[in-house]
């Protein structure tokens, strides 16, 4: 089945022209006989459109292609997980955004814009996946820096988690417990509930499949496995439903006056993530090697890159969130 978002005939936009048998002959994928009005040469000409999205360059891409990521992923696994998979995501992005007014939008902006549009689910998925996959590979390097070399970041993490071992255990156990592909994130989140303070703290977040960690697209965070939850646990996950009439709730004058976001600002900065999709670790660790993959990942994280991504206030004095 093809997604409804494609309003153009499939043969025009995609180079991979597979169409499910039920859709052949529909207006979206006309048979070749109907399309033979076009001259033969034109039909056989490959798509000459200049692409707008390109695979982003990784700093150590050349080394990774030759030798793989040391002590982590081989060069064949890297080829699958990054070179081919990111190219696939970018190609799908180009196909889905070609000719549209948002064709020059960034992947993050696409994810936020289409988080609540089920007709654009495919576009959201590919944009978010491209974004998350690049996030994962941006914290890997040939000579990773240890966390001990970044004392302010380490101290900040210890303040929240108690110890680095606890942080490691929490992240890796969470990732192991996730059944199915997804990502596990370490996020710096700012607490905006109380006006005048911006107390921030570290949080660990799970996103199944291509869920996004950004709060603006929270509708598609996909933080829990909906198959193992019922309505009440899901609503508890989503948070308490507040009354939208009367003197309490988000539409009262008091709450409307409260700034939900700082001026021009945001409230979450993802800092580190691990990609638990099978195609990343299947070739090197085997079908039952998820645990080994995760522990190897923890040893390979480049904490220097993490420190650069982390915001300045997360590396300062300790901050607590109290509930």
């Amino acid at each position, binding site marked *: 089945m093809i997604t409804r978002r494609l309003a153009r005939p499939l043969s025009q936009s995609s180079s991979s022209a597979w169409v499910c048998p039920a859709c052949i002959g529909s207006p979206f994928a006309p048979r070749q006989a109907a399309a033979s009005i076009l001259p033969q040469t034109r039909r056989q000409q490959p798509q000459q459109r200049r692409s707008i999205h390109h695979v982003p360059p990784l700093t150590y891409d050349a080394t990774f292609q030759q030798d793989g990521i040391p002590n982590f992923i081989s060069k064949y696994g890297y080829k699958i997980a990054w070179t081919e998979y990111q190219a696939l995501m970018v190609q799908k992005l180009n196909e889905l955004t070609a000719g549209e007014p948002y064709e020059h939008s960034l992947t993050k902006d696409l994810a936020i814009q289409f988080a609540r549009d089920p007709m654009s689910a495919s576009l959201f998925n590919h944009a978010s996946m491209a974004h998350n996959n690049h996030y994962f590979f941006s914290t890997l390097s040939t000579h990773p820096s240890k966390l001990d070399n970044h004392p302010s970041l380490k101290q900040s993490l210890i303040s929240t988690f108690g110890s680095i071992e606890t942080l490691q255990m929490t992240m890796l156990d969470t990732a192991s417990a996730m059944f199915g592909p997804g990502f596990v994130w370490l996020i710096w989140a700012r607490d905006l509930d109380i006006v005048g303070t911006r107390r921030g703290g570290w949080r660990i977040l799970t996103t199944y499949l291509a869920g996004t960690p950004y709060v603006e697209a929270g509708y598609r965070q996909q933080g829990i496995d909906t198959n193992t939850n019922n309505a009440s646990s899901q609503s508890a996950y989503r948070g*308490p439903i507040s009354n939208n009439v009367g003197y309490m709730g988000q539409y009262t004058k008091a709450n409307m*006056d409260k700034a939900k976001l700082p001026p021009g600002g945001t409230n979450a900065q993802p800092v580190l993530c691990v990609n638990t999709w099978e195609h990343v670790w299947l070739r090197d660790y085997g079908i039952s090697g998820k645990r080994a993959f995760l522990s190897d990942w923890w040893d390979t994280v480049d904490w220097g890159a993490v420190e650069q991504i982390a915001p300045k206030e997360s590396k300062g004095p300790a901050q607590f969130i109290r509930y």
Partner: protein
Amino acid sequence: MASRLALSKSTPLAHLRPRQRRTYASEIESTYTNPHADQQFIAGALDGSKSHAVQSATTSPAPTTPDPDQVLRDYEFSQHQKAVTSKIGSTLAPHYRPHELLSNPPSPKDITLELLLASQAHIGHSTSLWHPANAKYIFGVLAQTPSDPIHIISLDATAAYLRRAAKIVSGVTERGGLVLFVGSRGGQASTVVRAAGLAGGCHLFTKWIPGTITNGQQILGKCGKKVVDHRDEAVPGFEEQLIKSAAVKPDLVVCLNMLENYVLLHECALNNIPTIGILDTDCNPTWITYPIPANDDSLRSVQVIAGVLGRAGEEGQKKRKVNAARGRLPMRQDHGLEAPGEEGEGVGGLGKEMSALMAAERFGEDEVELEGRDVGGEVEEVDASLLEDGMEAEGVEVPYERDEGVDIRNWDTETGERMGRRSEQVGSAQRSARTGGSLGGGERSHVDPTWDGETGERYDEGGVKRR
């Protein structure tokens, strides 16, 4: 017992028996203030978390001045997050962003045929609407529909003329000239404002009031004027002279829509103000001094051209400021001002009205010079007032060297006129066009970029000084 009962009946007299005073609920209610009276509501989540008493859910919290450090932290956080996350996901190929033509306009060095083509600068009008004098700028005819062929402007001509115009604008601003950017079509307001801001000039995006130059004293008479020195700092002491002085005229006019501004261009031609204009295929090239053959109907092409000229003006301003800081000033400074406190007699006692009338008279004096010419015939006699070498016959050296402050050496005390006098408000401004036998809006190059500031000698064969 009876006494107690008696007491209970006589309540008003209770104060007489303090030992058996009773307190009544009404008394307590009237005097008691509940310390928790403000806490009317308990806010919080359904499961009891985050519960805290609030004074009132309907009143907004007392407005607190935002902590400046917090605002800075918020800003830094959001900027960092934007910078980090926008690069992640995919790399976007360079593409056209409309706002960048205003926020970061292209420079003269960025002029390429690709840029002009992408900005639709080559698209002309229907062939039936063309002006035949533009034939040399036209590349050919595009007939997508046989009923409506259009002309295509040759982009190498566009590029060449645009580069020349940029040089002119930068040359004028380098010598302290005033450039006026005019664009009265819809959407051109922000363009001209931005270009004028870069070049340190003036802008106009509404209708040109006819007579703003030819009848300037009437239309601009109430506008403020000031005298600035080479460092662009206001110089006090010229207030009286400014009241008498004429209204300011621009030294160069850039017009983005020629067809709608005929009156402006005609006035500039009458006053020998050079004009640069975007020449579409249906425009009359004789209306302007320096054409830029390009499409004036596309906002994108207009923004590219105006942006380039604005950037050129910015470069000229930068050079002027560098020169001024080093003390290298433009040579001719015909501002027509006297040093404050050295005014001639009979001037100080004039009222404001008389001064304004005298200013109007002096404004028209430029016309007097024109009347001296033999219209239609060749110019053989040049009016004496036009000759800058009026003093040369007496052997006085013409001051082409650097000026230090107000120069009154060429002040003719007899006639009370300055040689080649012209009312200039800006201290080091130079007029880029002169009277003296010029045909209005002629082909002469008014600003010579090869002017040598050191020797400053530019003589014509006929002995008449030229700029």
